[in-house]
Structures are given as structure tokens and as C-alpha cells.
């Protein structure tokens, strides 16, 4: 009796197995498909200069899914996108390569997607968005239509935005000392930053390197990085002079923390980075913006 049952069960088991085992052949055709979009010279150039060295996707073609749907936006131009890709490489990514000695730093920490938009993002109140960063994964650059390669310099907004957003990612990876937040602690005004500080001068006098720096200590920190590397020592000193004695004191003590953080956590000397960024920015207008070799 017992044996019979066992036989019966095992036959059931065998039958069941036999009946369906050949159903599950994986299709030899992948469901992941090659895009039907034709690859052009720029796509191939990006593969060699962004994907291979840095694993960064430089998305110049407009995609709803990458766009902020709360704005009305337009695609970036093909020619302007090529120019932008060369400028970002020369003025930002390679500046870090140069100071760290390899492409590994950018490859490890820089956001994996750079997304371009032709127009500004206009808010309903008429103000404009220059750039945004999302969760350390993507930076969007707006107003690519407005790029003028002949007049590009270290302070051109797109590149300042990149240093700013990259600063956030570094902070998120290795936090900075809590001492920093205490210096301007009660003075941060959150979203009122542009209402409270209508001019750079008024922000400087209160110890903020820019109006946006008054938003929160995390913004203050990366504003100090991005504005420092884009200015000569004289220009920086002019800002501190404008700040007056109390503003200067706050900015200088905050900057000391920023400088030491970059030095100790990342082994990046901001003075040296500044030198590299300024030199590369001066070279930028003379880059070859046509070749896709």
C-alpha cells in the first residue's frame, strides 16, 4: 500500500515534469532592442569621449521622460550640443582628470547622465531655471540655445552649474564637518533667498558668497566651491572687499572648512583646481567645435 502510493506520486511527479519541461526555451531574440534611431558621428564621438572613459551618457536628444514635465521646453540644437559636449569635457571633466591624475575620479563620482534642453525652463512667475541636478544621477543644462562659444569663460553659467552640482555629490559621498553649518546657522533663509537678497552685494555683506548660498548650508558649501574655482584671486578678493569686515569674516571661516574638506577628503587643492579651471576656460573659445574625429 505504502509502496503503491509512492509509485503513484512519483509517476505524477514525473509526468508533470515531463509534460512541461520543454516549454521554457528562452527566445533567441532579446526583448531589449537596438534603437531604431540611426547612430550619427556625434553619437560615435560621445561613445569614445564620454561613455568609454567616464561611463557618462550625454543626452542631447530631447526625451519627455528625462524632461521636467512641469515646464514647456524645446530640444537643444545638434550643433550647439556638440559645442557643449566639448566645453563640458574641456572645462569640467578634464579639469578633475588633470588634478586627480586619471579619469577614475569623474568615472566614480560624476552624475551618469548629462541632459540638454534648448530653452530655459520658464516658471509661471517669469523666472528661469538654469540647471538642475537629481539625486546625484543626472544634471540638466537648460538654455543650450544661448551658448555662445566665442564668449565662453570660467563664469559662464553652465560650467558654474556643473561645479555646483558636482559639489553636492561629493558632499553626499563624504559629509563635511558640522562646524560649517554653525557659522551662518540662523541666517539661512531657505526659499526666500532671492527675495531677501536681491543683489550679490547684499548677500556678501551678510556673509554669503551669492544670494543662493543663503538658502541652506549645503548650498552655501557648493556655492563656495563653484564660485571659487571660477574666479581669479583678485576677483575673489574683490568679492570679500565688497562683503565688508563682518561678511568677510564669515565667508573666510566657511571657506577654510571647504578648502580643508576638499583637501583632506578628496585630496583636491582648490587653489590648484582653480588654476586649472581658469587656464582651461581661457583655452575654451579656441576649441575645435566642428570636428567629430
Amino acid at each position: 500500500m505504502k509502496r503503491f502510493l509512492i509509485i503513484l506520486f512519483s509517476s505524477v511527479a514525473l509526468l508533470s515534469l515531463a509534460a512541461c519541461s520543454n516549454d521554457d526555451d528562452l527566445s533567441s531574440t532579446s526583448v531589449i532592442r537596438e534603437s531604431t534611431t540611426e547612430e550619427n558621428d556625434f553619437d560615435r564621438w560621445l561613445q569614445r569621449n564620454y561613455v568609454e572613459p567616464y561611463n557618462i551618457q550625454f543626452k542631447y536628444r530631447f526625451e519627455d521622460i528625462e524632461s521636467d514635465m512641469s515646464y514647456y521646453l524645446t530640444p537643444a540644437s545638434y550643433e550647439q550640443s556638440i559645442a557643449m559636449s566639448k566645453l563640458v569635457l574641456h572645462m569640467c571633466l578634464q579639469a578633475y582628470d588633470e588634478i586627480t591624475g586619471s579619469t577614475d575620479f569623474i568615472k566614480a563620482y560624476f552624475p551618469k547622465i548629462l541632459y540638454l534642453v534648448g530653452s530655459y525652463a520658464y516658471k509661471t512667475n517669469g523666472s528661469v531655471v538654469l540647471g538642475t541636478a537629481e539625486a546625484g544621477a543626472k544634471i540638466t543644462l537648460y538654455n543650450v540655445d544661448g551658448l555662445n562659444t566665442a564668449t565662453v569663460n570660467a563664469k559662464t553659467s553652465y560650467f558654474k552649474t556643473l561645479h555646483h552640482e558636482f559639489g553636492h555629490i561629493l558632499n553626499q559621498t563624504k559629509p563635511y564637518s558640522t562646524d560649517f553649518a554653525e557659522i551662518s546657522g540662523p541666517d539661512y533663509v531657505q526659499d526666500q533667498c532671492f527675495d531677501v537678497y536681491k543683489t550679490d552685494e547684499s548677500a556678501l555683506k551678510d556673509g554669503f558668497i551669492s544670494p543662493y548660498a543663503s538658502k541652506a548650508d549645503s548650498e552655501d558649501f557648493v556655492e563656495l566651491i563653484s564660485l571659487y574655482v571660477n574666479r581669479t584671486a583678485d576677483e575673489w578678493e574683490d568679492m570679500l572687499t565688497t562683503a565688508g569686515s563682518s561678511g568677510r569674516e564669515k565667508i573666510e571661516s566657511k571657506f577654510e572648512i571647504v578648502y580643508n574638506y576638499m583637501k583632506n577628503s578628496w585630496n583636491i587643492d582648490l587653489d590648484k583646481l582653480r588654476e586649472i579651471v581658469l587656464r582651461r576656460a581661457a583655452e575654451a573659445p579656441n576649441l575645435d567645435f566642428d570636428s567629430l574625429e
Partner: protein
Amino acid sequence: MKKTTIISFLTLPFLLTSCWFEEEDLFDKSASERIEAAKAEAKTALESAANGWHVRYFPSSTQEFGGYNVLFKFADGQVTVASETETNPATAVTSLYSLGEDLGVTLDFDTKNSVINYFVHPRNPDGLGSDYKGMEGDYKFMVMEASPEEIRLRGIISGNTYLLTPLPADADWATEVETYQNCAEDMEFFSYTCEVKGKSYPVTRTDRRFTIKVDDQTTVYAPFIYTKTGISLYEPITIDGVTAQDFTFKDEYYFEASDGADFKFMTPEPIRSDITFNLTVPEEEKTYRSVQVDIQPSKDTEYYYVTTMTRTEFESYRTDKKLTQALLAIVNSNIGSGDDPEVVAQSQLYQGASSYTLDYPSFYEEYVAIAFGCAIADGAFVATTDVTSVPFSVDASLLPAETNENYKRWLGKWAVTSTSSETSGTSYTFYITIKPNVINSNFKITGWGYTTYADLVNIAATYSGGNLRVTGNQANLYTTSTGTLYLANRYVDRNDPGSFGIVNSTNASNLVATYSSEEKGKATMVGRNGSLTSGVSFTITCLELYERRTGSTSYYYLPVASGYTSLDYFVGPYTMVQLVDAEGNELSPAASAATKQQLPAHPALLMNAAAPAGSERCEAIE
């Protein structure tokens, strides 16, 4: 044994469920293969139109701006776009496109295309829509249907249907676009009504959308696009049970349902007249400084309009309708509220046989005399006929024998270049034509100064001792809708070189041009020194046109021609280079080419030129 049976029966369902119901694939290909196939199909259809597609482009989910005629051509992953919204009909811009997938195949214009940007940019260049949404047009579409005969797209942003039909292989893009631009111009009116089954409904038009008031509760919106034969609504509309979508333009003033339905859009019926004109420019009446045009109408009872203009300007109007509208707009702007148009007609129009005189014609232009019938409708003048025209010209052979050579050598076209300017220190050049007035005694000059009125005004100059002399304080040079034009003297305080102003002075020698003793066709023009009643020592720097208004002592600023900056007045002395002599010989060909179309030549073209706000006073008296 019984137990065993039961158990074995219990197992049976397991056996059955495991394999008896085999799932059949509904499609013979996987979902991903199918979407790929659909994309390939869409691509083939899009690229099948070798000369591209005509597109009915309706931006905005409410179609509030109506529709625009746009052309698309797809090839090799690129799309070329042209549109009636471009100033130059030959503009066609190429950018990239790709096919993506959403709930179906999508067509994405994914790099910048400046033509499409007109509809999708958050700030439309003509200010249509809001300043953060623009016209809310589409650059991404769902492909609803695609065949070589017709493609239907649905805009992702607007949800609107875009209908694409192939262009004939031999259609020229620029001609197509220009045709649509002309259709839009020719079929646009200011007031409309809608007529269905003999009943009339009030209609207003904003951009390309009709708003039809059916009754107190019902308003029907009808966005439309101009076609080559009339207008076509975005979708059919129904009023009082009658449905219509496509309309044919009839008799130059109404649109009738193309399928014969009892549905019309009416505009005011034009008044037509069979009056004809016999225009002549008798040789015996022609002199070096005036031309008489004689007009003999076929009827004495109707008003008509007469003028002369350069052939270039005459030909710049594409149709008689454009020309008559532009000219009558000036006359109509003189009808104030409460004015009797009949009274205005008496002073500005003609009736019966008459003659018209053009004073100081240029030897270097071809002219056209024109006439057309006019009538009063709804308190304004409208044209009742086409334009009758006759060409004429004058030249130096009409100069009297006693014309002295030193007087004659001033006649012609000159480039006049300032040393500096008041605010920017720029050396500016302006172009004048010096024309004969009283032989061996004085001249008339057109093209003087930096305003858009320069070519409309003949200023006086005198001839004395071989020199040409000009002075300010010349009044009533031209009548505008708000005042009259005046040529004023500007001066600089010699002891304070940054201090400029207007001086009231009638001295005949405020600016004196001296013909070069060494070189033919060269001269210098220098401002006079003097002193004001206030004791200030001044030098005349320039003479410029202003508007004077009744009851005001101010000098109002006029619109400035392109290439000059408002209030950046010229500062002398000036060098003068002759470009064309009295006989019409070009002395300096390269420079004379530069004189072409510096300034608009007829008041009709000035209608939209805005003057800078403001005026100044003349405080300085000599």
C-alpha cells in the same frame, strides 16, 4: 484499495492542470518585435513622400491660435521643416527626428528646429500665448495612422490631430509657403458674420479662430487654417443642424461651405464701381521741378484717390488690394470720431476731372502715377476699383539753358558723413538727393537726417557764392496725424563740449557746404559759430527733423531709421562725397549701392514705426 483510488483520482487534477491548457501566442511575434515592425512601417511611410508632406499644424489644446500650413520632409533620420510663419518663405530648417514608443509609435523631433520652435518655444517670438508656455505646440507626436496617402499624428502636448498629406513631386517648397502666406493675407478681414439657413450670427476672430455666438447660452469656437481656396476648420461644426468644415472663398468677400451646405462666413460686401480713369502725364507740363498728372474719370459723381510714388515702392505691393488699403489707411487715420467722412473726402480725395502735381521729382527715380475709385462704407474709405497707373520720369535735360555749372554740380546724390555724434561719438553717414528749385538760386534736399521721415521731406537750401547753405527753423515740412514736421538747429556749447541743445536761429548760413577746389564731387559742410542771448558761445552741429504740435512749444522726437540711434544726433563738420551727378552718372558706384533702401519712401510704410517717447524744448535764442 479504495483509499488508493481516491488518492489517485485526487492527483488527476494536478496532471490536468499542469499541461492540458497550453497558452497559444495571440500574435506570431513578440511584443517587442511587433513595436519594432510598427516603427519600421511608420518610418517607411514618413519617408515615402519624396517631396515631403503638407501639415495642418494646430498648436494648443484649445486650438486658440488656429492652424498653420507647415511642410515636413523626412529622410535619413532628419526632418526638414518650412512654415508660413517664417518671414522668408524659402526658409527650411533641418534637424534630427527619431521614432520612439509610448502607447504606440511616437514621432519625436528631438533636436532643435527653429521653425517648429515658433510653436513650441515657451516664449513665442511674436508674443503669442503666455510667456512661459508659448503656443503650446507639439514636437512629439503619436503616430495614429501612417500610409503613403495620409499620415495622422496626435500631438503629445496638445492632444490635437495633425493631418499630413503628401506634396506633389514637382511642388516648390518656397512657392508653396509663399502661396499660403499670400492666401492668409488676402483672406483676412476685420469683421465677420456667420450665416446658416438665412439666419445671421455674430462672429469675432482672434488670430485664426472664430468665436460664433449662437445664442445667449451657446458659443461655438471654430479654429481654422487658410487653404489655397478658402478656409478649413479644425473639425466640423454644427449650427442649427447644419454641419460644415471646409469653406471656399467667393467673390473676394465671403466663405461658402464647399460641400454646398447652407453655411457661410460673411465679411462686409465690397463696394464696386465701374468708374475708369484716363491718366496722362503731358510732356508740355513737365518741368525740372514739377510734374503734372491729369486725371479724366469716366464719371464725375464718385470720389477717387490720386498719388504718385516711385516704381520701386509701387512694385513692393503684391496686389492692388494691399496698395489701396495702405494708402486709404492714411486717409482713414485722419477721420476723427464725430468727423463727417464726406468732409474729409472733400479735402483728401478727388471728384471729376482734375490734376495732381508732384513737386521736386528726383531725376534718379522712375515714378508711377496711380488712381483708383473710393467710396465711404461704415464711416471709412474703401477702394471700389483696381488701380490705374501710368509711369513717368524726369531728368536733367529739363534744366533750363541758363543753369550755371557751379550750381548744377551740386545736383545729384551725396553721402554726407559726420565727424562725430552727440552720445556715442560715432561718425555716421546719411544719404541726400539735392534737387533744383529756383535755378542758380536755391535747392530742395530729401533724405536729410536720421529719421524715418527723411525721404518724405523736401528741405530748402540756398545757393550763394558757389556754396550750398542750409538752415533750421524750417516749419510745416510735412503733416503727420499729430502735428507738422520742423527742421531745427542743434548746437554745442563751445566752452562745454558735452552740452548740446536746440537753438532758434534763422541765419541762412547755419550749415555751409563748400565745393572742393581740388576734387570733383567732394565737399565739406561746416556749422557756423555764434553766441546766444545768454552769452553762450555755440557752434551749429546738425539740423534735424522734429514734430511740432498745436499748442505745444516742445520738439517731439520722431522714429529713427535703421542704422541710427535715437538722440545720438550727428555732430559736424561733415564731409560730402557725390555718388551720382545731375545727369545720373555714377561717380562712386560702391557707395551709391549703399544708398538703396535706407529709409521707407512712402507714408504707408511708416504706420508702425514707433517714435521714442519724449520731446525737448528750445531754450536757446540767438
